[in-house]
């Protein structure tokens, strides 16, 4: 379970989050929607532990442990995963090399043994097939020269291999065409299992047609201003964010 209590965050003296509260239960898929500049991406970065953000107040508890006291890699080993809106390119580093290094780093941090090479290859191949990732892509340097859709599928592949407890998807639908959106969503849905929770950040309803959320939160000016079921997303699609902009102002 992830609990965010009274989270206040600023970056270079600009207040972005203003005492945000949010709870995502085990196995729950929560969507966060909101206009540009409402603090959605900031929230995802702060959960994952990006440096530039100054946390002035509040707590983020993953199963009762305050992740704000952990480094980003410790958070990853504790089960936090962030699918990036803009995945980074790592020139010269083969995708397989990267994947294996990450899996083993997390296993070591949890005091588990390293994965054997045959197990690793089997796992990657199985996950790659589901996401329609070509073998050739796995041989290339990570994300270098990948199309937007390929990068997003690679994020979901990593998520599948690392088996996190809590996944944050930051605008995973941006830059995806219909087919890629379907593949990515199916990949995510396949990972919806008892115990695993998701925080899906998006501007648009269309992603939520594919990844159907249990709850929808509306974010504005660094706060959750409304919470409802999946029908709230449909409502927003019709009325837009105008109401919420003024509501929070």
């Amino acid at each position, binding site marked *: 379970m992830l609990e965010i209590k009274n989270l206040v965050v600023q970056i270079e003296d600009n207040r972005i989050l203003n005492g945000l509260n949010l709870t995502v239960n085990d196995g729950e898929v929560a969507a966060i929607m909101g206009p540009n500049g409402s603090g959605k991406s900031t929230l995802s970065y702060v959960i*994952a*532990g*990006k*440096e*530039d953000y100054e946390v002035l107040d509040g707590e983020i508890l993953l199963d009762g442990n305050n992740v704000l006291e952990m*480094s*980003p*890699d410790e*958070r*990853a*080993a504790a089960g936090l*995963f*962030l699918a*990036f809106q803009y*995945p*980074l*390119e*790592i*020139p*010269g*580093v*083969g995708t397989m*090399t*990267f994947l*294996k*290094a*990450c*899996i*083993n*780093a*997390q296993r070591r*941090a949890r005091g588990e043994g*390293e994965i054997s090479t045959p197990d690793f290859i089997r796992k990657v191949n199985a996950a790659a097939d589901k996401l329609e990732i070509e073998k050739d892509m796995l041989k290339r*340097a990570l994300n270098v020269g990948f199309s937007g859709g390929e990068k997003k599928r690679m994020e979901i592949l*990593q998520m599948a291999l*690392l088996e996190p407890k809590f996944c944050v998807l930051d605008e995973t639908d941006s830059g995806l065409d219909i087919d890629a959106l379907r593949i990515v969503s199916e990949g995510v849905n396949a990972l919806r299992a008892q115990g695993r929770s998701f925080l899906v950040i998006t501007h648009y309803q269309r992603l939520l047609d594919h990844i159907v959320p249990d709850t929808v939160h509306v974010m504005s000016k660094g706060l959750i201003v409304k919470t409802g079921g999946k029908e709230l997303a449909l409502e927003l699609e019709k009325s837009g964010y105008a109401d919420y902009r003024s509501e929070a102002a």
Partner: protein
Amino acid sequence: MPAVQETIDRVRSIDLDQYKYGFETVIEMEKSVRGLSEDVVRFISAKKDEPEWMLEWRLDAYRRWLTMQEPDWARVSYDKIDYNNLYYYAAPKRPAALSLDEIDPEILKTYEKLGIPLREVEVLEGIAPERRVAVDAVFDSVSVATTFKKELSKAGVIFMPISEALREYPDLVRKYLGTVVPVTDNFFATLNSAVFSDGSFVYIPPGVRCPMELSTYFRINERDTGQFERTLIIADKGSYVSYLEGCTAPKRDDNQLHAAVVELVALDDAEIKYSTVQNWYPGDNEGKGGIYNFVTKRGDCRGARSKISWTQVETGSAITWKYPSCILRGDDSRGEFYSIAVSNGMQQVDSGTKMIHLGKNTSSRIISKGISAGRSQNTYRGLVSAHKKAKNARNFTNCDSLLIGDQCGAHTVPYIESKNASAVFEHEATTSKISEDQMFYCQQRGLSNEEATALIVNGFVRDVLQQLPMEFAVEAQKLISISLEGSVG
């Protein structure tokens, strides 16, 4: 890159005291008197029992050296070296060993600690024949052991300390010594010509592919001692040799001077692959101590269709001044230079290459990867030139610099001279930083700071690492990670 995991483990296991080869061997040494004079030159020559012409050659070099000025064009700064306060010769006191059993056990232990096997029996066990490496171990001024000599001589390969070659094959040495790097070439090369004490000599006869890797391992141990080694490699027509050089030194507060000369000669259709893993003591984080590495390395593609390839991984030394070069004299000859230069702390590197195209249809390729961290300065300096007669000369140069942190510097200084209109030279250069976003991305996947840096840096240098013989590539990869330990805040 199967070694990444190993690299990461290695990085994790080391403590803050990064330089693991910094120990000192306590052993009785015989030294020349402090300082440099004709008498010292005579002393060195006499110690080596050299022919008269060699002594004259040295004295001539010494006299020339007295008239020369230390060069100051490189982008490095250091306190003036007091050449009269150095020892120019230091050798273990025990008489030269005829077999390994006679080597001072302290020296054997030193090389064991460094991971350099000198006992052939141990080397032989469990190693496939093609993976064997013949080693010449140079301790301060003298060679203390050369392995696999017998087996090499069966193939007609001569691999021995140059001091021994001067006695056993004087004509061969005389024919080639100083023909690639002339006695008067530059201040440091001239000094080396006067006082060089040992180094390796290699001769590969026509048509022979050297049956194993050859390697020289240099160790500076004594305080205030300069190491001036001289290496001469001749690949006769149609032959092939791959040669590797490794270097370490103890940690000392004062600077030690290393001024080596390496000459390579490739005759028609011959190929020489020369790899260096340089890990001299770099000094501490404040810039105290460390090796001054002023080295002249040059290869002469003397024959048609000959090829010389330099690969270097430079992680050590307080100051590096080094430009392994190729003279492409033979028609259709080819020169290559692959370099990874890592600087951290207060290290200063000014390194690169020269590709001198003289013959027709000559080609060269330069791939240089500079990585700067800490408060270090890293300069690539390279010359590509085409002579009037170098019809259809081709060069491709790629210089990439990677900066870690914001207190270091990377500089690229290319010189291009073409006197032939048909020459085509290409130059590419990039400078990048390991971005905080890349680091965060890797960390979000579970990699620690060090692991993420090692991974990104390994990716950056991959093209060059691929040029190294496999086992050295693994070693080089570890070395790079260790050198950068603690460089990311």
